[in-house]
Structures are given as structure tokens and as C-alpha cells.
């Protein structure tokens, strides 16, 4: 019974922290993009516009929830829930620190891939159930995009699994800490680049945000959604960004550890709590997301699929072969 209560408290802490982060990521995004375009970003609500996410939340909460007359009502209403649930569920297998993990699964990595592949249904259904051309095209684009890039993502992670010899995220970090470089991003640089590009495409973010390309599709699969259901999609997108950042941190950047050659030269860094390293790495990855969105133009859809199938998948296979050779030769 006590265990259950501790579990519930832990879970609510994780969810609260992540949701606060999501709220302030929207603020950070608007600020950074504003600065990149020589604007100030939000400034009105609170000092430096710091209360802007809260104001946005209150506004969106009190808006009217509109369901189009010719929409498939039930599917239209549960689609955002499918996306949100199957994205948030990933938070349970993420080890935030050496001993802070909600569920230490043996197959944590595969669990994340599996729930990501189910979350796509929400987007496809949102597109189909809206009964609108724009939404439908957005849903179709999202389906083909996520299907194509999941393969590249899986291949780049296969290299990590091969090198670490485990699917457990905690064991991957420990194996990584004991490896030569301390992070897998150095020996598996090809896999790392493949992972980062596919992570951008998996979360439907710029420069691969074709499912919601404003210039062509109004807002893609989100076109018919309003108020709280729109907010749920929005939330899911940002949580998915964080999941990808967590995954990148854990599988390629060493999680809560830092490489041994750094702690050998600067021994006082070992005193820093692991969660801080974890947070710094995750924030850098989120900053990369926003930075890329502020600077790169959007790809065309055929270019997107060409990159996925003709560049990233072969590169992922080459990375896997290199890792296999390194492992076999015992380097």
C-alpha cells in the first residue's frame, strides 16, 4: 500500500514537472524565435512576459469546443486523447537519474518505439474524422512521414542497443558510461545524426512539419480542432519533443553521467547531481529544436520522403555495420 502511494506521488511529480516544462517551452520558443527575427517575443503579461503560458492556458480552456457537423463524432473526440495518452505513457520508462525511474522495464527502448507507433493513429484519425480535405491530407502526410522515419529511427537506435547489449534504458546509460568515449555520440556519429533528423520528422517539427504546413494545408490535421482538444494536440506535440530529447540524451549523450575523460581532468564535476547533467542535455536538445525551426525553411514532401528512404535508412544500416565491426573487434 505504501509502495502504491509512493508510486503515485512519484508519477505526479514527473507529470507536473514535465507539464510545467511544456508550458514554458512554448514561452521559450516564442522568445527565441522572436530574438532570431529581431523581435522581443511576448512582453506584456508579467515581467518579460513570463506569465504568458498561463494566460494562454486560461484563454484556451474557456473557449468553445466545436465539433464539425459532418465529422465522425466519437473518433473526432477521442483522437487527441489517443495521441496524448500514448505520448505521456513514455514518461514512465525514462530514467531521469541513477535511481529515479517510474518503471524499470527490460525493454524500455522498444516500449517507447511501440507507443510512438500507436500515437500516430491519433493523428491519422484526427485527419480522417474531421471530414475536411485539409485535415485529411495532413493526416495522410503524417502517416507516411512517421512510417518512413520510424525505420530510420529504429536503425539508429539499433546501433546503440548493439553497443550496449541491452534494451533497458538504465543499462544503456551505464554501459555507455563504461565505454571508451563515455558517450555513444562520438563513435556512432552517423547514427547520432540519423537519430536527430528522424526525431525532428517523428515529432512533425520544422523543417519536416508538412502535416501542418500552414502555407498549403491551413493547419493540417488540426484544422477543425478548437479550444481544449487543440490544446491536447499541442501538449502531445511538446511532450513528444521532450520524449525525443530524453531518448537522445539517454542513448547518445550519456544520460545523467558525463564522460570519464572530463571527470578525470576536472574531478570536482563529479559532485554535480546527475539530474542536472540530464536537464542540461535535454534543454540543449530542445533549444536545437527551436533553433532549427527559426532558421530552416520547410522541405517539400517528395524531398522529405527521399531523405528518409534514400539517405537516412542506408546511413543507419552503415552505422549498424560499423558498430557491429567495432563490437566484434572489441575496440
Amino acid at each position, binding site marked *: 500500500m505504501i509502495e502504491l502511494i509512493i508510486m503515485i506521488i512519484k508519477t505526479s511529480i514527473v507529470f507536473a514537472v514535465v507539464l510545467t516544462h511544456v508550458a514554458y517551452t512554448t514561452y521559450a520558443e516564442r522568445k527565441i524565435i522572436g530574438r532570431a527575427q529581431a523581435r522581443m517575443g511576448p512582453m506584456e503579461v508579467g515581467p518579460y512576459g513570463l506569465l504568458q503560458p498561463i494566460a494562454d492556458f486560461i484563454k484556451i480552456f474557456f473557449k468553445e469546443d466545436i465539433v464539425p457537423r459532418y465529422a465522425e463524432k466519437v473518433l473526432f473526440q477521442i483522437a487527441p486523447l489517443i495521441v496524448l495518452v500514448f505520448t505521456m505513457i513514455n514518461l514512465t520508462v525514462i530514467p531521469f537519474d541513477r535511481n529515479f525511474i517510474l518503471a524499470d522495464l*527490460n525493454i524500455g527502448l*522498444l516500449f517507447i518505439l511501440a507507443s510512438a*507507433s500507436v500515437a500516430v493513429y491519433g493523428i491519422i484519425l484526427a485527419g480522417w474524422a474531421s471530414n475536411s480535405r485539409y485535415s485529411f491530407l495532413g493526416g495522410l502526410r503524417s502517416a507516411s512521414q512517421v512510417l518512413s522515419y*520510424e525505420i530510420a529511427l529504429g536503425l539508429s537506435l539499433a546501433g546503440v542497443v548493439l553497443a550496449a547489449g541491452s534494451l533497458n534504458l538504465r543499462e544503456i546509460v551505464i554501459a555507455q558510461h563504461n565505454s571508451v568515449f563515455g558517450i555513444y555520440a562520438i563513435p556512432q556519429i552517423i547514427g547520432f545524426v540519423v537519430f536527430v533528423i528522424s526525431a525532428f520528422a517523428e515529432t512533425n517539427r520544422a523543417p519536416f512539419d508538412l502535416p501542418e504546413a500552414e502555407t498549403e494545408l491551413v493547419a493540417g490535421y488540426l484544422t477543425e480542432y478548437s479550444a481544449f482538444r487543440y490544446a491536447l494536440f499541442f501538449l502531445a506535440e511538446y511532450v513528444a519533443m521532450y520524449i525525443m530529447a530524453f531518448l537522445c540524451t539517454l542513448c547518445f549523450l550519456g544520460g545523467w553521467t558525463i564522460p570519464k575523460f572530463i571527470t578525470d581532468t576536472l574531478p570536482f564535476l563529479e559532485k554535480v547531481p546527475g539530474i542536472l547533467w540530464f536537464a542540461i542535455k535535454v534543454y540543449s536538445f530542445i533549444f536545437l529544436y527551436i533553433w532549427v525551426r527559426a532558421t530552416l525553411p520547410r522541405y517539400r514532401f517528395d524531398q522529405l520522403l527521399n531523405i528518409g528512404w534514400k539517405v537516412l535508412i542506408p546511413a543507419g544500416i552503415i552505422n549498424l555495420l560499423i558498430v557491429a565491426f567495432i563490437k566484434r573487434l572489441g575496440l
Partner: protein
Amino acid sequence: MIYLIFAYFCASMIGITLMALTRKNPVHSVLWLLLLFLHIAVVYLFLNAEFLAVVQVIVYAGAILVMFLFTFFLLGAKELPKGKRYIDLWEGRALIGLLLTGVFIGAFSSVNTSWKGKYTIEYIEKIGHTKALGIMLFNEYPLAVFLLGIILLIPMIAVAVIAWRVR
């Protein structure tokens, strides 16, 4: 308690299958099928086969079923064709039912609960299901794995050839 959960999953799997078979709208059918696949994954978890459970979700729910949905969308089939089914003979139905019953009886009669061998439950618990599966597949059945790979490669080449010709 665990038996109650297992009973729920078994009962609801039958119900979900019936729902998937009787829907008029193919997209709804596919969604019930998705629910069925998730339930099957949970049943794998009851057998401590966590790797199989996740692969069930990734491959069947995440890839194959999305392909189904895609096909429905591209063909624009809002409803299934109302014409006569291919087989509408009661003799055929009875035959298929009898055959399936035979398969079930065969399967249940050959269940061996006291199976002894190298891969005992204790061994799998010690090194983990995924590892045990990998060791068994690649050490004892390497030829079968290679053959499966080739079988999967052939349709890929075929699709590439077809796409080439169209262009």
C-alpha cells in the same frame, strides 16, 4: 486477481473480434482490430514474453495496420461493397468450422505443461526473455532466420521493380 484480468482479456478479445468483423465502415473495422492487437500484446505479457508483446505492437499495430488504413484512405472506400460474398455456401461454412475445431483440438491436446529442456522458466527469468529468444534464434535456427530474411526481401525487390516500370 490475475485470473480475473486474464479472463477479462480473453472475453473482450472475442467481443472485439466480433465487432471488427461486423462493422460496415472499414476504418472502424481497422480500429477494432487495433484494439484487438493491443489486447493480444497484453496476453503475451501474461506469458512473460515482453519482447513478443512489444513487437506485436510495433509490427502489427504500428506498421501493418497503418498500411491497411492507408490503403482504405487511398481507395476512398467509405463502405464495403454490398455485392455477394465470394463464398456463401452453408456447406463451406460448416467445413471451415469443423476444420478450425479440429485445429483447436489438435493444438490443445498437444499442450505439454511439464516440458523439460534447455530453456526452462528459471533460465529465461535469469537472463531475460529477449536475450533468451535471441540466443535460441541465432544459435539453433540461423538457417530459418536467413530464409525469412530472403522471403521478406523478395517482395521488396518486386515492389521496386513494379515502381521502376511505372516511371
